[in-house]
């Protein structure tokens, strides 16, 4: 029996007169037909299209590799899961099971961590907007409060007096680490003395316990050496506190911002080849701390809040081709059923998109559009793709970070998120949104309840 060959549209391609080589000049695509040994088609059939797929195994693997990278270079290391990167409870709990604390940046995230069962004393509370109620809660729970500005410092001071409790605090320090842009909007500046000033205020107040120092020098950092600069500056501050007050800083929190293997827009080479590995960051931070002059009796705990680098490549977005179209300038476009509303990171990255079924070796420069009726809804502006038909399935790689938190309900309803556990069983960890769910919050003034068209 002969099977019917797959139809692919005809394509005209300009002859490229490069230097010939033995590999030829065409781009090879590998179809990604399975995620963790489960066929993409099956996942879509069972959970709909589009669907986010998270791999528990890969999360654990990433976490352990990161922990190993730091633990073999520095004696005391603690990770804190950055909730804003992905705060689906199932994802958080995988990290908590592995030993991660929680790092939150709002009262809502704080409550989420508590409801996940994280002990209050293992929650790091960051961010510029902590309400008085939030702070009170954090003080009662012995959480680690990272002060962002003087107003917060004064509020804490008042709360310490009124609640008669000693908040555990750290300050967030920003500094020049030799990279652009310099993140100086959060915390206190190192170079102009604000940080030292804040530390003195805390130490003199006597009603707060200074437990740590925190910095977060940027996001998607491509230069590990910046972390070395940051670590030595924090160690310098710790040493100054020790000298002046004979007080030992208990931890140094280096924040996160480690690049994942995604490719930033505008990069010349793919991120997977050029972005530094977590080991490079670990090496820079650990050796800077070990080489610093800060020598307390017990080395301070090194806290890391890395989010993206641990989760990004542990999730995929599966979707389906809706239509193909040719633009006025002759450029090919493919429309898929997921847009920037759920793949927010397509604003930042050139996401790798793979077809999920076999295809021929021919490809064409294509624009991938989402399904939204909005001009901004572009997944890839220009990508060489095989010739896809309606109903073909595609896999977007490395979508674990920020998408499942920054996504928005816009035009379409948000899809299911499923997790494949290490045994290969698929669990729904967030159901798709339904109309009722959205309507639940809406209220209709009586006079608008009815109309007659």
């Amino acid at each position, binding site marked *: 029996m002969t099977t019917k060959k797959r139809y692919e549209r005809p394509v005209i391609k300009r002859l490229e007169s490069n230097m010939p080589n033995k590999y030829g000049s065409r781009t090879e695509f590998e179809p990604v037909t399975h995620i963790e040994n489960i066929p993409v088609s099956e996942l879509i059939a069972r959970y709909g299209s589009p669907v986010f797929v998270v791999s528990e195994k890969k999360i*654990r*693997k990433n976490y*352990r*590799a990161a922990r*190993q990278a730091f*633990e*073999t*270079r*520095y*004696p*005391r290391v*603690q990770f804190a899961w950055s909730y804003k990167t992905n705060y689906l409870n199932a994802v958080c709990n995988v990290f908590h099971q592995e*030993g991660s604390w929680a790092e939150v940046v709002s009262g809502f995230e704080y409550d989420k961590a508590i409801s996940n069962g994280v*002990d209050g*004393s*293992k929650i790091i509370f960051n961010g510029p907007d902590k309400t008085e109620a939030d702070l009170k809660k954090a003080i009662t729970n*012995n959480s*680690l409060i990272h002060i962002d500005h003087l107003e917060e410092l004064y509020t804490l001071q008042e709360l310490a007096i009124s609640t008669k409790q000693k908040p*555990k605090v750290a300050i967030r320090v920003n500094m020049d680490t030799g990279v652009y842009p310099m993140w100086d909007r959060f915390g206190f500046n190192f170079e102009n003395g604000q940080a030292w000033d804040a530390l003195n205020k805390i130490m003199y107040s006597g009603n707060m*316990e200074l*437990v*740590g120092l925190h910095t977060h020098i940027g996001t998607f950092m491509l230069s590990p050496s910046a972390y070395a600069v940051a670590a030595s500056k924090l160690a310098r501050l710790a040493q100054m506190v020790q000298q002046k007050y004979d007080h030992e800083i*208990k*931890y140094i929190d280096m924040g996160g911002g480690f690049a994942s293997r995604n490719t930033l827009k505008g990069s010349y080479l793919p991120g997977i080849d050029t972005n530094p590995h977590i080991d490079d960051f670990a*090496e820079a931070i*650990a050796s800077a701390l*070990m080489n610093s002059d800060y020598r307390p*009796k*017990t080395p301070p*705990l090194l806290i890391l809040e890395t989010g993206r680098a641990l989760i990004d490549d542990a999730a995929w977005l599966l979707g389906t081709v809706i239509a193909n179209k040719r633009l006025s300038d002759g450029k090919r476009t493919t429309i898929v059923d997921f847009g920037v509303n759920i793949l927010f990171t397509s604003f930042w990255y050139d996401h790798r998109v793979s077809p999920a079924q076999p295809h021929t070796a021919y490809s064409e420069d294509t624009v991938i559009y989402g399904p939204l009726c909005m001009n901004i809804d572009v997944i890839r502006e220009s990508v060489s793709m095989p010739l896809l038909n309606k109903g073909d399935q595609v896999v977007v790689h490395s979508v674990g970070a920020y998408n499942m938190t920054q996504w928005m309900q816009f035009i379409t309803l948000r899809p299911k998120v499923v997790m494949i556990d290490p045994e290969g069983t698929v669990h729904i960890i967030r159901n798709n949104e339904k109309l009722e769910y959205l309507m639940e919050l809406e209220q209709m003034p009586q006079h608008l309840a009815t109309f007659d068209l």
Partner: protein
Amino acid sequence: MIGQKISNAFPLFKQSVSNSYSQIFFARHELMGILLMLVTLFDLYAGISGLIAVVVANIAAYLSGLSRQQIISGLYGFNPLLVGLGLGVYYQPGLSFYLVLVFVSLLTLLVTVSLGGILFKYGLPYLSLPFLVGIWVVTISAREITHLEISERGIFTLNEMYSLGGMPLLQTYEFFNDLEWALPVKAYFRSLGAIFFQYHLFAGLIIAAGLLTWSRIAFLFSVAGFVSAYLFYNLIGIHITELSYSYIGFNFILTSIAIGAFFTIPSGYSLLWALVSIPLLAFLSLAGSSVLWIFQLPVFSLPFNIVVLLLLYLLRTRERFHTKPALVLFQQFSPEKNLYSSVVNQRRLAHLAKFPLRLPFWGKWLVTQAVDGKHTHKNAWKYAWDFEMTDDDGKTYSDKGLKTENYYCFGKPVLAPADGYISELEDGIPDNDIGDVNLQSNWGNSIVIFHTAGLFSQLSHLKKESITVQKGQFVKAGEQIAACGNSGRSPYPHLHLQFQAAAEIGSPTLDYPFSSFITYKNDKPTFRSSTQPSLNQIVAPVQVHELAVKAFHFVPGQELKWKNAENPALTESWTVETNVFNESCLVCSKTSAKAWFVRSADLFMFTHFEGDRNSLLFEFYLGAYQIVSGLTPGLTLNESITISVYHNRFLRLLQDFTAPFYRFLSVQYSQVQGGMKNSLSQSYVNLKSTVVFSAFGHIKLSKTYEITLSENQISSFTCMEGNQIKRYNHAN
């Protein structure tokens, strides 16, 4: 009054006397001492002269400033005692007799001290040699002392008895004499009696009872020694009356106890050695009797002394088979205690005498070549380890592993395994490409650290130019000194570690244990101490944690107070005490029970317990039997506790009889470290221990304990047995 005065001037006078009696059987046991004293008093004058000799010798020893500990143990008293008993039996009492007795006691004491000093250098005991010197000297010299008259009491034993205890005693004596027991049985008891110059069955029975209360094992060996002597005599055709009537039988008994149960850890091997000594004793007693007959001297315990010294010297000089049988290193004056604690402590406490060495890195590493390895750890260099790192899948590299940087261990910090001075280093040898080896500089970049006399550690194949220390520099344990590399004979990056006795790079290796490390199996951490990592183990060093260190740091004079959680009126308090040997213990203020403990770099350990086993301190001894100074959530620790703490006394007594060969009781301790709550300021941690008492592999009793540490102290202690829960909170 006088007793009061003596005990003021000479504390523990009574112990020194009773121990002098029990010491003849190597024991320090009050009840046994009293029983033995009773036996000597059957011959009243002899008994009294023995007692006088002991008192004179002990007071003389005390006044001349000899070690009080030795006097109290009866080590200076037992030889004069034997001399006094012997003289009391042979001579009539009278002024000149007592005069002679006093000075012979002093002579015996002097001989004891000097012989002790000489033999000490060879690690040997003086046994009853001073007694032999004393009694022979008097026997010979007495021939010239006209005022010393030979006693005639021995001839008219029954008259003596009658005058001492009237008809009832005589009847008892006759009853035992007329017993229709087999000859060897009677001979055994008579021989026991003969040790105290009491040649009758009754004395022997009481002595046997004393022996049995002191030690079941010693009793067993005494019987074994005597029976085998009896069989041997029959076998080679020496007439048995030789044995029964010449009263040399006790030589077999004492030798068998000494060699089989007292100076060695009792076991099948020690029994074998005891049996081997029997024929030697037989020859020595026959030959000794003949030779000494020239001087008309009895041979007494000479064969026992010679054979025990010869055998002990041999055992001490051994180069191999140190445990077949093992010598007793810390004498507790009880074969049972020696045996039970050696079973547990031989390995458990071994590291206390060793320099504390830790793994020279942070985090988990894989042992890819261990002692006696497949590749290079051979012959003189066999005590060495190679370490590499793996990922979750067990691979040692990422990508294809074609570059040194792909290997997880490459460039990772290498730490000093212990404090020391850098004695040798080599740097500048390039790191090899993967698969290549540099046979010219076999060891590659290396560091040798001098820790203590005869102990160096060598770290090799280090990364080029990664060494951050200089020759002669002092480094602290855990300080980073270099990075793992691929130099020298190293086809792929790994860290080589060995301990050696010399400073040169590549010296022959030394078999030395690590003080502690953690092994991981299926991600479950288990604590190991005093041992070495083996092939394919995943190992990590213990990270010492302040909380665990401070909570179990007991300072002499410190008082630990406890309050019952349900009933705050119920309180307990323990004080920390230290004795002259620098041994520390917790003392219960209610019961004076003592729990002895030691501290090492990585562990807090209780070593033994004495006193009331119903006290809370006993529960604490069990529950906090061993505490690791580091905190790793989930860390498991397994250890055996000595059988002496077994709860069922009857089973314990039964166990004593078979203990040297087969132990059916066991007490196992295990502990799991709970998760830490906030490792920053108010950290606290739960330690859950379980003590399981089992007989023949069946669990008979299981106790659970929970210890909470917080604010640098033990904040609560809970014991759970069945449904019964006792919870005590710290109350200072």
